[in-house]
């Protein structure tokens, strides 16, 4: 599945144009980064409110495809440039994590 298929409605891609062409396999939602490292799988999309550099660092370490910052959390320019360097797509949404999961389920994106 392409990241591009997520981009309908209230999702905004903040990394460079083209980063939405990456593939993803499944979704993991969580905020505590040690738990994310334990449980998320390579190429997952991480859904989190943890909008900081550490989330991008963890995504890079465990080969996540993308991060969706939910509940209006915003990525800083530093996070965007690091994610661009590491090949991770960053998206922002006003949805809560649970609404993202419900939306993905409804649209067959899981």
């Amino acid at each position, binding site marked *: 599945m392409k990241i591009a298929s997520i981009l309908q409605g209230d999702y905004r891609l903040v990394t460079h144009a083209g980063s939405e062409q990456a593939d993803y396999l499944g979704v993991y939602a969580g905020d505590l*980064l*040690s*738990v994310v*490292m334990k449980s998320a799988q*390579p190429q997952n999309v991480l859904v989190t409110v943890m909008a900081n*550099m*550490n989330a991008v*660092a963890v995504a890079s*370490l465990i080969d996540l495809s993308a991060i969706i910052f939910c509940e209006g959390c915003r990525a800083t320019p530093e996070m965007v440039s690091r994610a661009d360097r590491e090949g991770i797509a960053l998206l922002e949404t006003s949805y809560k994590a649970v609404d993202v999961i419900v939306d993905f389920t409804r649209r067959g994106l899981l």
Partner: protein
Amino acid sequence: MIAVDKRYDIIPNDFNFAGRASSDIKRTLKSMHFSREFIKRVSVAAYEAEINIVIHSRGGKAAFKICEDALYLEFVDIGPGIPDIQLALTPGYSTASEESRLNGFGAGMGFSNILKSVDKMDILSDPNGTVLKLKFNITEADRDENR
């Protein structure tokens, strides 16, 4: 033969710099074509150990070596030490500050993630500092980048 011998400084309380050592370790292993599974084990343990120094210590250093069929990571910090190591190893136990928690840390899962990843862990701690030594055995399968 020592194939890799690298050292890193770890700065306390600098959440933007945190993870640089682990990222370099991961990049190095990727360039050496280790398996994805092996790289993940080493990267996760390295990151947890690095973050422990960032959030709990007055600063420290990491060393990364590959020697024949083993990979070694050593993390040394300059205190204040872990008062009760058994308690620190208990999943869910954390003394992380509010700032660390706001940065996504302090789940109390650091050592349990490390223990799950390594083949051997040694830890020595007193108020002068903590030394954490991690060993990962390298098998033929770990050298297969397609795994």
